[in-house]
């Protein structure tokens, strides 16, 4: 039988001394961290996982927003620092990272997230601790009274706004519409938005098929969708799923039979599969660089991004990173610092124009009222350059009428 008595030399005294010494060593760096004047913004985003391409664009643009403020001397003489953390597209991980950002890094505000579940998790952590959170991912739920707090701001479009703008351009009375929907919150909210818009327009629903998140194979869905004989097929999914679904739909000859419509047409996914696949697909967007011919702010934003990133152009989800951080920093400028109540007040009153025209946060739910673009993917022969991806079909300027009413969301009016 092995016995613990066979451990020589290791006495209680030396063990205790060794333990306390190593504890002291490890605690050393913590003592060196004194209070400084830097303004710290936490930025959880899914750097790994299926939305990594969009997340990297968000980081680049958020860093640009910070750089531009720092180049002008910061906020009241204080430099701004962006603390980027990988939330791995996992709500639990995001909540943990946000706790870390608040408790350990003592951030003054949090911006970020790229999924409905993740942003709601981050919001739950920040609102309990009275920290401002600017979400830059689509969600209808975060507007609703149950998840709202005075510290919650939503910079991204929401599914209701996006789908109604897209439906206005693509659906007509009496049209038959079928849906292919990713089976998670994003897909469900988009579907709900489309159906609501359909009912208002008078288009008929002929069927809907749910597919699992991250599905690679859509071949079983396509014949079923085609047998429904719709005029329009709405594909409500995100990231790689969008490219995969459209690609396989094209392989099945879906486009000869019906028009393909998506709630949000993704810049990176269009780049990933090429013009032939996406040709003629119509979808909504918060931003497209081609807006620069119509809009001075867009031209300035593009120029600043190109200068900082070796001539690359900013993408749709990237623009959220820029305006999310940019609007927060602008409010901090007005508030003259980071005092939460003052910054909240400044954000509520803020009129900003950072990427595409005037925006402001609606008072009751802190949803950013902003323009919605509707884009159509160009065919190869119509593209002037490799970056000339989309034609702008419509640019609906922002108004409160685009949103669900405050009372519908459960806010006191």
């Amino acid at each position, binding site marked *: 039988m092995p*016995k*613990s008595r066979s451990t020589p030399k290791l006495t209680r005294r030396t063990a205790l001394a060794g333990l306390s010494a190593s504890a002291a060593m490890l605690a050393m760096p*913590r003592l060196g961290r004194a209070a400084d004047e830097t303004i710290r913004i936490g930025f959880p985003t899914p750097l790994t996982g299926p939305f990594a391409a969009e997340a990297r664009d968000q980081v680049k643009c958020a860093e640009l927003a910070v750089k531009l403020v720092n180049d002008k001397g910061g906020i009241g003489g204080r430099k701004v620092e962006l603390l980027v953390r990988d939330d791995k597209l*996992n*709500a639990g991980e995001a909540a943990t990272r946000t706790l870390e950002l608040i*408790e350990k890094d003592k951030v003054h505000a949090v911006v970020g997230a790229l999924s409905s*579940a993740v942003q709601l998790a981050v919001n739950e952590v920040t609102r309990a601790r009275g920290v401002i959170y600017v979400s830059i991912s689509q969600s209808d739920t975060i507007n609703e009274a149950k998840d709202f707090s005075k510290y919650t701001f939503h910079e991204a479009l929401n599914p209701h706004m996006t789908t109604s703008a897209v439906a206005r351009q693509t659906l007509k009375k009496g049209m038959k519409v079928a849906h292919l929907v990713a089976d998670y919150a994003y897909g*469900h909210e988009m579907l709900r938005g489309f159906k609501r818009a359909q009912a208002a327009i008078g288009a008929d629903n002929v069927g809907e098929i749910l597919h699992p998140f991250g599905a690679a194979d859509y071949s079983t869905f396509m014949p079923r969708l085609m047998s429904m004989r719709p005029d329009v097929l709405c594909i409500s999914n995100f990231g790689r799923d969008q490219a995969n679904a459209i690609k396989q739909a094209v392989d099945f000859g879906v486009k000869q039979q019906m028009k393909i419509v998506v709630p949000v047409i993704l810049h990176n996914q269009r780049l990933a599969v090429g013009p032939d696949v996406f040709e003629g697909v119509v979808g909504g967007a918060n931003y497209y660089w081609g807006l620069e011919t119509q809009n001075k702010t867009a031209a300035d934003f593009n120029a600043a991004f190109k200068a900082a990133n070796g001539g690359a152009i900013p993408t749709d989800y990237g623009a959220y990173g820029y305006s999310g951080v940019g609007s927060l920093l602008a409010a901090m400028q007005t508030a003259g610092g980071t005092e939460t109540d003052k910054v909240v007040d400044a954000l509520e009153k803020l009129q900003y124009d950072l990427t595409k025209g005037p925006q402001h946060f609606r008072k009751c739910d802190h949803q950013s009222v902003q323009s919605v673009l509707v884009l159509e993917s160009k065919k190869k022969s119509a593209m002037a350059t490799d970056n000339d991806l989309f034609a702008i079909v419509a640019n609906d300027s922002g108004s409160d009428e685009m949103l669900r009413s405050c009372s519908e969301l459960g806010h006191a009016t």
Partner: protein
Amino acid sequence: MTSPSSGEAVAKPASGSLSWLLEQRVLMSVAVLAVLPWLLPSQALAVNVLIYGVVVMGYNLLFGYTGLLSFGQAAFFGAGAYFTGIAIGRYGVPWFLAVAIAVLLSTCLAAAIGIVSTRTRGIYFAMVTLALAQLVYYVALQASSFTGGENGLRGFTVDRISLFGLSVNFLDPVNKYYVLMALAALAMWFQSRILNSPFGAVIEAIRENEQRARACGYNVERSKLIVFMLSGAISSLGGCMLALHLSIVPLDILHYQTSGMIVMMVLLGGARSFFGPFVGAATFLILEDVISVWTPHWQIFVGAIFVLFVLFLPKGIWGTLLDTLGIGKARR
């Protein structure tokens, strides 16, 4: 059951203060955990080590001590979290009662899954537990009016913890850590008690030679079912702690990847050792935390390290350390 300290203290009285200390595995483990928040980069990470430590410890009872490789432990981890969140958020139950209810209901779930799965063995047992855990996942996904579905369960933030007239601010990370550590200590005492009991010897006998245990007159089937339930109960307490800690329950907690992570943690730390699960959880979470700040390709490094450990330290970090120091495996 006799008094809680009878197992160790009475067996070897006054045989040197160090060896006496080494035998107090619960006391020693709690002492290490008590200084953890000051050793790790952040309190949030320390709390996660506690939570996953408890979950993996529960799993170790099943995998390490009984030799049943289950791939469905996430079901109990998640059930504990969901039941706690629903009890607090929907029914306004006080937190300690919510935890008790959650553990009780999760144990019932473990009984249901255990009745079906413990009839099988080996790879079939692993597959049946995996399938049933996935069933739980899809129930949570579909029953969104109860669980919040894909968006996860929210709206049950516990900001003050009150018990016996004492009230502390639970949003403070240090308070939170020590409240949760008390729950973890309870789980450790419970597990230690199980392992020191005759039942603890029976499950190890089943692991070593099931036929022989049966020949000795032990009811192998019933023992397996009981250990499955106990294991589920302890892991579900980890789920309760997670719900209190994050104030959300993410749906991913029920995903089979979580089950896989639990298996990885127990292998890293050392199956069959009392404190190994905490070492495994800490190693995994620290690696993930530190490396993912450096590079988005952190999974390559964590994966490579895991493979190296399995190849060269099959007893895990803690098991190998104890062997090297010559401390018997029955201790800690």
